[in-house]
């Protein structure tokens, strides 16, 4: 990665409040056109890191450069802010202004802005353009937030939990929009606690727990390294299938009436089928490939609930 391609460069970033370390020695690089996802539960340090990169919080130790500028350099801060888009968690705007008026307000903050009509159309907000922000549902407010983040046609957009509160259809629309945004050479840095979001959107994922990055790589790399083996589920096989397969396979488990067999190659499945056939057992099969949830569970020992809390 050349310096020109590097949009974010973070080295040993640390943020402390007194003795409490919120971000602990985070180092990462994000290059142009990349969608980078910061994945972690609530309180992991995602938002603090993103706010440091947005020049909204000072760092304690280390360094961070955004679009080639030092986030701690007062002269660079306006230059960074001019070229970034920001969607904070729980986006809010002026309640008694309409959607359009709020977007016009944000547009006026920048020297460069994109067409408000295009943005409204892109986020399916055209019909709500004259509605007051305070009268909108949570999902619609979040969409206005995404529009506000794109209003200055940014080179880099920070999205803190961008699809929280959105219904599945709009979530997918937002994902598509962000993907096309990245394809046009723009960079997206997002935080999420949705595994599927990280997997679907991100070129690379950083898993952050208690302020530390515990894994960093493409979703495929992380799943290969930390996701474990693929599993074949013999549905409804019960004790019979379990006893039969146990004669040949040691690493086997029973989940209710389903028998779960981890495997590395198809030859193992063929062997399992032949064993079951000998025992006169037939059952439905379902293959389960490792996903980001498995990666997260293996790395941290816990999963993330829908609200973002560790469980």
């Amino acid at each position, binding site marked *: 990665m050349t310096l020109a391609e590097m949009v974010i460069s973070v080295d040993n970033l640390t943020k402390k409040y007194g003795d409490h370390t919120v971000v602990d020695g985070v180092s990462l690089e994000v290059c142009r056109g990349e969608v980078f996802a910061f994945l972690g539960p609530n309180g992991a340090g995602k938002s603090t890191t993103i706010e440091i990169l947005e*020049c909204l919080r000072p760092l304690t130790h280390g360094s961070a450069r955004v679009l080639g500028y030092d986030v701690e350099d007062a002269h660079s801060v306006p230059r960074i*802010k001019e070229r970034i888009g920001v969607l*904070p968690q729980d986006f809010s705007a*002026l309640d008694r202004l309409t959607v359009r008026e*709020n977007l016009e307000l944000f547009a006026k903050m920048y020297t460069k802005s994109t067409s408000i009509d295009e943005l409204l159309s892109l986020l399916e907000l055209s019909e709500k353009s004259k509605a007051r922000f305070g009268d909108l549902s949570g999902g619609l407010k979040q969409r206005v937030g995404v529009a506000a983040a794109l209003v200055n046609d940014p080179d880099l957009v920070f999205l803190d939990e961008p699809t929280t509160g959105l219904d599945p259809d709009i979530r997918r629309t937002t994902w598509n929009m962000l993907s096309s945004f990245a394809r046009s050479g723009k960079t997206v840095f997002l935080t999420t606690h949705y595994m599927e979001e990280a997997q679907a959107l991100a070129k690379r994922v950083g898993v952050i727990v208690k302020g530390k990055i515990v894994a960093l790589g493409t979703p495929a790399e992380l799943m290969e390294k930390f996701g474990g083996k693929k599993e074949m589920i013999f549905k409804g096989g019960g004790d019979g299938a379990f006893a039969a397969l146990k004669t040949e396979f040691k690493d086997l488990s029973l989940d209710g009436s389903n028998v779960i067999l981890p495997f590395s190659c198809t030859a193992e499945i063929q062997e399992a089928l032949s064993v079951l056939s000998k025992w006169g057992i037939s059952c439905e099969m379902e293959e389960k490939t490792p996903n980001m949830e498995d990666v997260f569970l293996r790395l941290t020992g816990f999963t993330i609930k829908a609200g973002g809390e560790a469980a």
Partner: protein
Amino acid sequence: MSRIEGIFTAVTKNALRSRVGLFFSALFPLMLLLVFGSVFGGSFAGSWAPLLIGAFVMTNGIVALPNITTEFKRRGVLKRLSATPLSKLEWIVGNVLSQTLLAVILTVTLLLAAWIVFGVKPMINPISAVVLFTGAVMFSGIGMVIAGLLRDPEAASGLGNAISFPMMFLSGTYFPLSMMPGYLQSVSRFLPLFYFQDGLKASMMTGDVSTALSDLAVIGVLAIAFLLLGSFATRWRSK
């Protein structure tokens, strides 16, 4: 300038679209003037109008402005705006200009009522305009100090009211200062509202230019001081 204009337009629209806010900042003082002017006569209405203007420009700056600003702070609107190239100074100037416009609307409303209903013709001149502008800036500055120090809208309103109510009484808004004991009259000389109301009265009603200019000098110095303090208290970056 575009950013200041953007903030000015947005916060002004936001304020004018609040029915409750508009009632208390413009219609309520109008009702007071009409009711008490009818009871005590046109001459009273003429001399009371500048005091009412002063008092309500103050409450708009000290109570309403910190209330809405802390509400923006609590809901993250301010943080979102601070993620744009908008500077702290531009944010403050946009708000101060908005407060000035609200002060002009209030003033025009009350002076028109005094003229049309009670036949009291005010003197509209550059000095009264400058006094009005400077007073609005001064109280917006105090409002920005309150908003900068507190996070909670309820606390901001509470503190604003705790400052503004005694100031209204001690500056002679509701009772003539001559009715008060000597030591309370001395206290009034330490209150910004006294100089603002005195300056408005001198420039709009009595035509006493030298009084208006000396009052203007006091509120001018206070306006600069409170604006600086307000700018210092407003946090544009989290800890």
